[in-house]
């Protein structure tokens, strides 16, 4: 049952919701003038409140996690240390610092996986709101930032959901604000079209996801053991436990799993559920594209990991070409193969830099699926390494894509378009931005010593251990192919002559966000163990 001590465990989500209401309230309860300066001040007020608030929430979440420091037990008790102690007792390590508490009402787990995902998602939201700070002015600024905050809260809930109903509600809480944000600039034809396409695809896929969830619930309810409490049958662990007793009845559970993979597969934009991604990524406002392509995809991957590992562990199978071939690991291996091929090949002929990055995001999802396939490895150590590799890749990919799309946003604001031709001669017009964009692109391509190289390396190792060397070989081949189109971007930046030789002015907010992202990539590349130690604390056991 829900206890009062469970509230600190939900603190990041509660803080995000309170911040969203604050942003809305600060806009409503104040009279804004009609002059352009007053409108600009209105936008600035919501944006800066969001950025500062998200920074604070990130710091509080970091404090709660105990990854930086944990309050020792023998510190004298005063108000300050009591607050920190209560805060950290709601964190992943629990009140004693050793064991993880069971999920809240059996629905929301606050373990290390959730905490790491929360930090990554709140960081991504912070960088996005920095990017939006100086982007084009929009009609209703407070609602814009409040929707970003609501979506972030939904993503944090997605990362920790261990129950079907909460998983579905979290997916919808993430998606609905993102539909609206993608179509926010109504007068821009591409933005409205992006919002509409995102909504139609998303509604269809949530229907498919729900059908799979209903079949999973049915196969769990069909077991002889029966339920203990009302929310028993929709908990992922119980589904694995109960449906496993069914014996002659794996059919419905497998069908449910297929529908669930299809439904979540749309969220992470893997082939063949990727149809919406290039159009929506290209049409949406660039900071929102950065947000959707990174944070939403990361939350989707964590949800997929939890669903498959906790609810369908018996169907895991193996991706190795051998007697064990089958199950969801081999299905994910097939999807990874398709995604790598289609994503990389479709990016080759692109002339729009934004669309090229969109297709490259689709291809990157293929690499992340390779890390999920690692669950087929026989040893638990290899599986944990696979999860750590996935998390590392997600964090690196988030930072890199935010930086790349942010740099594109700066160029689009200054030059007016987002074709590759608009990047011509960027090195001569604005060297710092060109260097930052270059580092992001090189990290996406997987060039050492940037973090992208280590991310791909760990993922390939995980795939190898899983016994799927054929997939690793394909991934290596497509990495070489992707170098071609990434180098095309670099060629435009450094070699092509610019259209005009005037220096570019970029807004400080966007430059700051891109610089932060690139700093993160460089640090994570030089010192990967900084975060890998934390990621290896995640211990996902099959059926939990």
């Amino acid at each position: 049952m829900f206890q009062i001590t469970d509230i600190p465990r939900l603190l990041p989500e509660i803080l995000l919701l309170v911040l969203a209401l604050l942003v809305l309230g600060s806009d409503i309860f104040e009279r804004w003038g009609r002059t352009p300066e007053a409108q600009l001040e209105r936008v600035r007020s919501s944006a800066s409140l969001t950025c500062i608030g998200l920074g604070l929430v990130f710091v509080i979440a970091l404090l709660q996690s105990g990854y930086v420091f944990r309050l020792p037990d023998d510190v004298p008790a005063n108000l300050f240390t009591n607050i920190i102690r209560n805060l950290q007792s709601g964190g992943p390590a629990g009140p004693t610092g050793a064991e993880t508490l069971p999920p809240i009402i059996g629905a929301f787990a606050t373990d290390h996986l959730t905490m790491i995902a929360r930090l990554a998602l709140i960081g991504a939201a912070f960088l996005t709101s920095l990017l939006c700070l100086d982007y084009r002015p929009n009609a209703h600024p407070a609602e814009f930032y409040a929707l970003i905050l609501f979506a972030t809260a939904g993503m944090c809930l997605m990362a920790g959901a261990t129950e079907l109903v909460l998983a579905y509600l979290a997916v919808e809480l993430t998606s609905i604000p993102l539909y609206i944000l993608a179509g926010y600039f109504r007068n821009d034809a591409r933005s409205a079209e992006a919002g509409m396409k995102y909504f139609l695809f998303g509604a269809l896929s949530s229907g498919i996801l729900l059908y799979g969830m209903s079949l999973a619930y049915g196969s769990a309810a069909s077991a002889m053991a029966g339920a203990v409490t009302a929310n028993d049958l929709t908990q992922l662990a119980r589904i694995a436990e109960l449906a496993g007793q069914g014996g002659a009845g794996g059919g419905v559970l497998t069908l449910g799993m297929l529908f669930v993979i299809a439904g979540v597969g749309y969220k992470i934009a893997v082939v063949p559920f990727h149809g919406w991604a290039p159009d929506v990524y290209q049409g949406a406002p660039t900071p929102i594209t950065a947000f959707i392509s990174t944070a939403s995809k990361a939350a989707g991957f964590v949800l997929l990991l939890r669903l498959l590992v906790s609810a369908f562990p018996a169907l895991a199978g193996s991706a190795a070409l051998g007697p064990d071939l089958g199950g969801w690991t081999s299905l994910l291996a097939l999807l990874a193969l398709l995604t790598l091929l289609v994503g990389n090949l479709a990016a080759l002929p692109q002339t729009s830099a934004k669309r090229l990055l969109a297709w490259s995001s689709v291809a990157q999802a293929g690499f992340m699926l390779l890390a999920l396939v690692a669950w087929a490895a026989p040893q638990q150590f290899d599986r944990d390494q696979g999860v750590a590799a996935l998390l590392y890749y997600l964090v690196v990919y988030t930072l890199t894509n935010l930086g790349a799309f942010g740099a594109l946003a700066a160029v689009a604001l200054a030059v007016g378009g987002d074709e590759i031709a608009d990047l011509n001669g960027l090195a001569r017009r604005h060297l710092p931005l060109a260097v930052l964009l270059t580092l992001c692109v090189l990290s996406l391509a997987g060039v050492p010593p940037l973090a992208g190289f280590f991310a791909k390396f760990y993922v390939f190792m995980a795939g190898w251990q899983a016994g799927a060397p054929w997939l690793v070989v394909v991934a290596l081949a497509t990495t070489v192919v992707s170098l071609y189109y990434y180098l095309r971007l670099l060629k435009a930046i450094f070699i092509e002559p610019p259209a005009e030789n005037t220096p570019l002015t970029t807004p400080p907010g966007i430059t700051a966000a891109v610089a932060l992202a690139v700093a993160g990539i460089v640090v994570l590349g030089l010192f990967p163990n900084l975060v890998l130690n934390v990621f290896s604390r995640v211990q996902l056991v099959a059926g939990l």
Partner: protein
Amino acid sequence: MTNAIPLEAVLVVAGALFCIGLFGALSRRNMVGILMGVELMLNAVNINLVAFWRYLEPRFITGQTFALFVIAVAAAEAAVGLAMIIAIYRSWQTVNADSVDSLRG
């Protein structure tokens, strides 16, 4: 009721409704028509959930609760989607999904 109608019959009805809704969502060109297909799919899911509740575990309220949440979210999604459709109509005077399809490649 459980003696007269086998569970499979209700599930087949729900499955048929789901497939008809899927067909409607994929093949209608009017955006409101696509949304109607999605609503059919969500109703099929609800029938599934209530049938599983009634036949397999009627002492606990799980299935009905899940169905109730689905109804609530469907209402919210329909509201947002129809608002977007109306906004698009105001600018482009069309609700044909093929006309609002300029992004290519």
